């Protein structure tokens, strides 16, 4: 059931992005539809982050267009993002979440209760009163997830959320992401961790050098890649 | 901790503004006067009596005579109380003041180091003393600030037949500051300096300085008081200002001036009854 104002599907039609004459994305056409998580994989600099920022409406394409549920613009109200190194506000853990709730327009009255619920989900309830900047890397990443969920998002973009985490913290984050996806939130995640892609992906988009190389359901991508680049990437060879 | 700082700031600012507002509402006048009357402690002696009698608070701004007259000319004071008669008369003639009254006099003294390089200590003729200072190129500190004392000094050089503007050399130091600063400078340099007797008596950082020349009739220093013209400046507190002038020229005010002494010495000699 989608409200008339739904952000999905997010459609990319012939989208290119250039910055200072450097082409970051070339003629990308892609549909992000409701359903299983979409995982963007590819080497560093292949355009994954740029694609996520376009999907968030934080960046305008140099050519082509992006639409959300058929509309040319989004107010971003139900889009949320966790960046690779999320910045913690100089406030308590609890206040970081209530701030995100406020920014999302949540009523002042219920914020405390909702914040506690989100912190519990992120496993941070005992850290509520600590300064967010003094949390560990894994805790900060989970707090960023709680902040993103405070927006009650329809689409959640994750940019290498576990890149700097140890295995235990990586697993904790992945568990939260799985739960979120299961609750009907469309997850779009960039990663270069193939194992993570295998564990979470519903479909895989391989980006190489700003081009979409291959897009296929996860099971097919990992068992029977259609392109030589994908096969090489899966073998662990360098793909440039 | 949770109250926004801006709220505290605004509250505090208004609080202080209200306090000062309240103070400004009471009966008060602003008197532009000279450093000599202030620094000698005369005002501390006489003003409480006037305030007790009338309830009018007198706020004294101590400046040089020239600056004090300027303050009156801009309408920033209600009364001027200074010592440079020609300038005062011009002030009244130009319409900035109502009328000038004599109040008191003291005298200037030529201060110098005990070593006395010009050899003038104990003499009475100020013109001859200044001529000797110039002849010996002995260091001399001038106020150089258009104050009453500065005007008097310039008139004395003229009386000695010296055109100081043309003849000054490195021995003549114009500092452009008040009496106290001039005395501090003279004390540090062991220089001669013209000062009013009151300020010198109450001055503490004398070092080697002592009175070198005194008693010449030309060292006579007359103080006058003028109400700033209410016609020119409608905000001038005419009644309260006039009340102060009436009091200081009355027998009561005059005797208060005459009673003021430091170390047994009388500093100011009331002469309000003698009209110019």
């Amino acid at each position: 059931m989608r409200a008339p104002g739904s952000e999905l599907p997010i459609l990319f039609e012939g989208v290119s992005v250039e910055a200072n004459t450097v082409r970051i994305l070339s003629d990308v056409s892609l549909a992000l539809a409701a359903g299983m998580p979409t995982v963007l994989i590819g080497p560093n600099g292949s355009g994954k982050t740029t694609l996520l920022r376009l999907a968030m409406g934080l960046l305008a394409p140099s050519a082509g267009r992006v639409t959300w549920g058929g509309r040319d613009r989004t107010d971003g109200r139900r889009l949320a993002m966790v960046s690779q190194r999320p910045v913690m506000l100089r406030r308590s853990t609890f206040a970081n979440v209530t701030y995100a709730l406020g920014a999302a327009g949540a009523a002042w009255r219920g914020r405390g209760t909702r914040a506690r619920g989100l912190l519990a989900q992120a496993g941070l309830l005992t850290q509520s009163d600590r300064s967010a900047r003094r949390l560990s890397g894994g805790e900060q990443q989970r707090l960023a997830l709680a902040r993103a969920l405070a927006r009650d998002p329809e689409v959640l973009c994750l940019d290498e959320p576990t890149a700097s985490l140890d295995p235990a913290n990586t697993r904790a984050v992945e568990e939260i992401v799985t739960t979120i996806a299961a609750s009907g939130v469309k997850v779009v995640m960039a990663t270069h961790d193939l194992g993570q892609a295998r564990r979470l992906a519903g479909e895989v988009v391989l980006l190489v050098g700003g081009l979409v190389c291959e897009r296929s359901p996860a099971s097919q991508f990992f068992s029977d890649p259609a392109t030589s680049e994908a096969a090489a990437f899966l073998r662990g060879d360098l793909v440039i | 901790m949770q109250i926004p700082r801006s709220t505290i700031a605004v509250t505090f600012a208004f609080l202080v503004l209200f306090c000062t507002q309240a103070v400004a509402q009471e009966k008060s006048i602003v008197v532009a006067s000279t450093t000599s009357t202030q620094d000698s402690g005369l005002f501390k002696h006489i003003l409480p009596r006037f305030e007790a009698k009338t309830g009018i608070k007198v706020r004294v701004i101590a400046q040089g005579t020239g600056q004090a007259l300027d303050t009156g000319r801009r309408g920033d004071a209600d009364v001027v109380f200074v010592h440079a008669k020609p300038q005062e008369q011009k002030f009244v003639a130009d319409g900035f003041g109502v009328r000038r009254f004599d109040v008191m006099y003291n005298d200037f003294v030529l201060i110098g180091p005990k070593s006395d390089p010009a050899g003038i200590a104990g003499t009475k003729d100020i013109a001859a003393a200044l001529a000797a200072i110039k002849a010996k190129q002995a260091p001399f500190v001038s106020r150089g600030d258009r104050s009453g004392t500065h005007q008097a000094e310039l008139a004395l050089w003229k009386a000695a037949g010296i055109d100081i503007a043309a003849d000054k050399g490195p021995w003549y130091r114009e500092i452009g500051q008040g009496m106290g600063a001039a005395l501090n400078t003279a004390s540090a340099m062991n220089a001669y300096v013209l000062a009013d007797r009151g300020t010198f008596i109450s001055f503490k950082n004398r070092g080697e300085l002592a009175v070198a020349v005194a008693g010449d009739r030309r060292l006579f220093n007359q103080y006058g008081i003028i109400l700033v013209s209410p016609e020119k400046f409608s905000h001038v507190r005419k009644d309260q200002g006039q009340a102060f002038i009436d009091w200081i020229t009355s027998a009561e005010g005059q005797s208060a001036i005459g009673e003021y002494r430091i170390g047994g010495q009388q500093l100011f000699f009331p002469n309000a009854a003698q009209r110019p």
Partner: protein
Amino acid sequence: MVEETSALGLVLGGDPALYEIVRLSLAVSLSATALAALVALPLGAYLALVDFPGRPFVIVVLNAFMGLPPVVVGLAAFLLLSRSGPLGFLGILFTPRAMVFAQALLVIPIIAALTRQTIEDLWTEYRDELTAMRVAPMPRVATLIWDARFSLVTVLLAGFGRAAAEVGTVMIVGGNIDGFTRTMTTAIALETSKGDLALAMGLGIVLITLIVLVNAAAWSIRRIGEIHAG
């Protein structure tokens, strides 16, 4: 009278006149800092966040004005507030209010310039996060000022220190009236001119002690705050 009072006794003995001078100094400089902050914090934040033609020029001028000579500011304030000047109708020349006004003028560039730097640095850090949260411009400014509050306390202290230590503006617009507009610094200048160097130095030590105390208080507040929210 004056010569009967020993300098040390006056400074240490809690003389009521000295108390009044200290009270006025603190009240004037704190009010001036508060008044300046009302103008300078939003101004600094605006300069940090909004680009407009001539912005680099404004920033350079503002930074240069951090070193405005107090005497010049005092003179400008005097000409504004004099009965013959454009703000003469207020009738506040030679009152504590004029001193607050003049010191605020002196301190505004300091607070605004340092605020701009602080807020701009924090904005660089927060930009992506706040943009992704779609925080609107005005709440954005509020967020940055609030989250930079501990740094801004230091900025305000810099302004307060400047206001409390200067003598040029308060002397000119206050007139150094005994018991009314006499502050620590003008009292020091006066005692120096009266040749009572010991008393002047004693007052100077009291002033420095006060500034240290205010800074210590602010530092403690900052420390406590940082432990909870830094």
